[in-house]
């Protein structure tokens, strides 16, 4: 009899999730060739990550931002407002470049949804930035300096009422809604509901319902794409994302300035808050991986990069809670795909403290020889096709850099070719050159 999930070791859980990914249920492959390609590709990534078996060749991933839109002659605005345009563009991108994986098509968030809710956290195409421009975050103190206790002791209330009422203009009226805690049995049962009868609160809920309708419409497009791509031979390189606790607070709650001042003025509260967020962030990844039958969970890292924090600050404020998230995922068989944006040269010694064959580290601007040396035998490394080269270099420059990467990092397996940062409009011939060259030169003999 098969072992129950709870009885499995973390290794067995990882293997089980990988097997579900390699042999997905309910996928009707377009052709025997597509099925063969799919399985080869997924197995190649698994081998590169597990560090047990040499893959047949270096896998190659492309992880775009709005590049597929630009490639099809569309603007970010086009795909954020006409959801039906997303599929064709994102599909064409994968079919033309033939990387080993696809990353879903959820980059264009639904524009109408954002408008209905009056999303304040970002400017998006046609709404603060030009239609040809990608969306960009507006940092602010969406959580105030004296609100750590609410976040720590009552995170559900905080994320259900407090925070949304600040980042979504249409939800402002819900900020003072009472708990539905029925302390009074029948007597007084209706009291907490009184605010729901008020016109502003009703308008907020009406906006929520409308936004839900639009999100559902968008999800239909994104979901259909996620179903179709495996059938065409492309495994998904992520089941979903999670984040480092420091970045959750630094990016969208307190902002960079806020969190950095908190490191001085209220370090203990900050540490407690990160601890409180950790189980939620683990569950976010574990839930997505199990639901999708795909062990890969992306973790984009922002504010722990070189220069952002001192070594001591990194070791005190950034790494311990991130490591707890990583280990929480690993324990459940999930494979963190950690994207270290910026440089991570000064962090390499610290991040070595991890178990073998459980994750991949995708680097942006880090010295890849040093990264490979530090993580050799510990974790698969990935990335580093630089943005300047993709944008202004030649195909030969791209091939030369790809060769250097394969020679430096590919030795003995444990390397995935990929871009170092999200990309929009680049020289398409350079992307093609990287994928084709990797498939040819990256073969392990």
């Amino acid at each position: 009899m098969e072992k129950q999930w709870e009885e499995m070791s973390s290794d067995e859980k990882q293997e089980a999730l990988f097997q579900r990914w390699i042999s997905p249920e309910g996928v009707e492959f377009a052709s025997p060739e597509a099925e063969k390609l799919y399985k080869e590709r997924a197995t190649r990534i698994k081998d590169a990550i597990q560090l047990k078996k040499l893959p047949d060749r270096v896998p190659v991933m492309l992880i775009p931002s709005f590049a597929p839109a630009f490639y099809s002659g569309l603007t970010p605005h086009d795909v954020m407002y006409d959801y039906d345009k997303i599929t064709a563009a994102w599909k064409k991108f994968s079919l033309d470049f033939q990387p080993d994986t696809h990353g879903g098509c959820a980059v264009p968030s639904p524009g109408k949804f954002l408008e209905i809710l009056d999303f304040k956290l970002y400017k998006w195409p046609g709404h603060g930035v030009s239609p040809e421009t990608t969306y960009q975050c507006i940092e602010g103190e969406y959580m105030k300096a004296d609100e750590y206790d609410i976040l720590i002791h009552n995170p559900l209330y905080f994320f259900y009422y407090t925070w949304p009422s600040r980042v979504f203009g249409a939800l402002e009226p819900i900020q003072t809604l009472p708990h539905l805690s029925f302390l009074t049995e029948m007597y007084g049962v209706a009291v907490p509901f009184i605010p729901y009868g008020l016109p502003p609160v009703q308008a907020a809920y009406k906006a929520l319902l409308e936004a839900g309708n639009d999100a559902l419409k968008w999800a239909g497009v994104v979901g259909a794409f996620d179903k179709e791509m495996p059938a065409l031979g492309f495994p998904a390189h992520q089941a979903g994302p999670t984040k480092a606790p420091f970045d959750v607070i630094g990016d969208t709650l307190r902002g960079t300035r806020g969190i950095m001042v908190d490191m001085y003025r209220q370090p203990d509260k900050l540490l407690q808050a990160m601890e409180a967020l950790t189980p939620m962030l683990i569950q976010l990844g574990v839930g997505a991986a199990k639901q999708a039958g795909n062990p890969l969970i992306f973790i984009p890292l922002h504010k722990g990069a070189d220069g952002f924090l001192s070594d001591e600050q990194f070791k005190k404020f950034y790494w311990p809670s991130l490591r707890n998230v990583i280990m929480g995922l690993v324990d459940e068989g999930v494979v963190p795909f950690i994207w270290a944006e910026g440089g991570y040269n000064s962090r390499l010694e610290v991040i070595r403290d991890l178990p073998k064959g459980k994750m991949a580290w995708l680097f942006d601007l880090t010295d890849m020889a040093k990264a490979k040396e530090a993580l050799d035998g510990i974790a698969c490394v990935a990335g580093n096709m630089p943005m300047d080269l993709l944008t202004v270099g030649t195909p030969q420059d791209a091939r030369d850099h790809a060769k250097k990467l394969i020679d430096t990092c590919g030795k003995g397996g444990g390397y995935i070719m990929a871009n170092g940062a999200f990309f929009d409009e680049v020289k398409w011939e350079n992307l093609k050159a990287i994928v084709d060259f990797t498939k040819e030169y990256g073969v392990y003999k």
Partner: protein
Amino acid sequence: MAEDLVNTLADLKEKEALKIVEKRLSAGEEPLGILNDARKALEIVGKRFADSEYFIPDLVYSGEILKIINDMVKPKLAKAAGVKRLGKVVFGTVAGDIHDIGKDIVVFMLDVSGFEVYDLGVDVPAQKFVDKIKESGAPIVGLSGFLALAFDSMKETVDVIKAAGLRDKVKVMIGGGQVSDEIRKYTGADAYGKDAMAGVSLAKKWVGA
């Protein structure tokens, strides 16, 4: 006492530093002297940042403390003091890009290093740079950008500066995000700075300081 404020603030001891300021103000001391000490302290902070002894949180925090000191001192300040400066710099994040963390750090470092910085903010159209160069007569322009789209905006800004007949009157430095020397060539800027310290070195070199 003067030494105290300089070192206390440079060591980022907020409460102690504010107490000293309060004491000196209530003792009837000239606000200008207090601000001069604060400036000296921030110079030390800048040096420590350049020496990798301080990092961004320390810079940000020193700025926060300075803000409070300014607010305490301002009501008692007769008029702004003219400080001798090394030179003028026009600075901003280029059109289409609204990122400001990197820009703010370079502006901070240029400021504490003795430059008079005109910070134009984010998403700055090329023409606004031109207008500010004309108005201020600044010989140095700094273009910041985090996104790859900034490559083209930087190029366009340099082109517009050229079209306005100002190209030989200013030196242009670029930096931020994925900017590299390859991008410098692409944009036609004079130099690329890897980090805030590189930006300060370039500015100093260009004004002959």
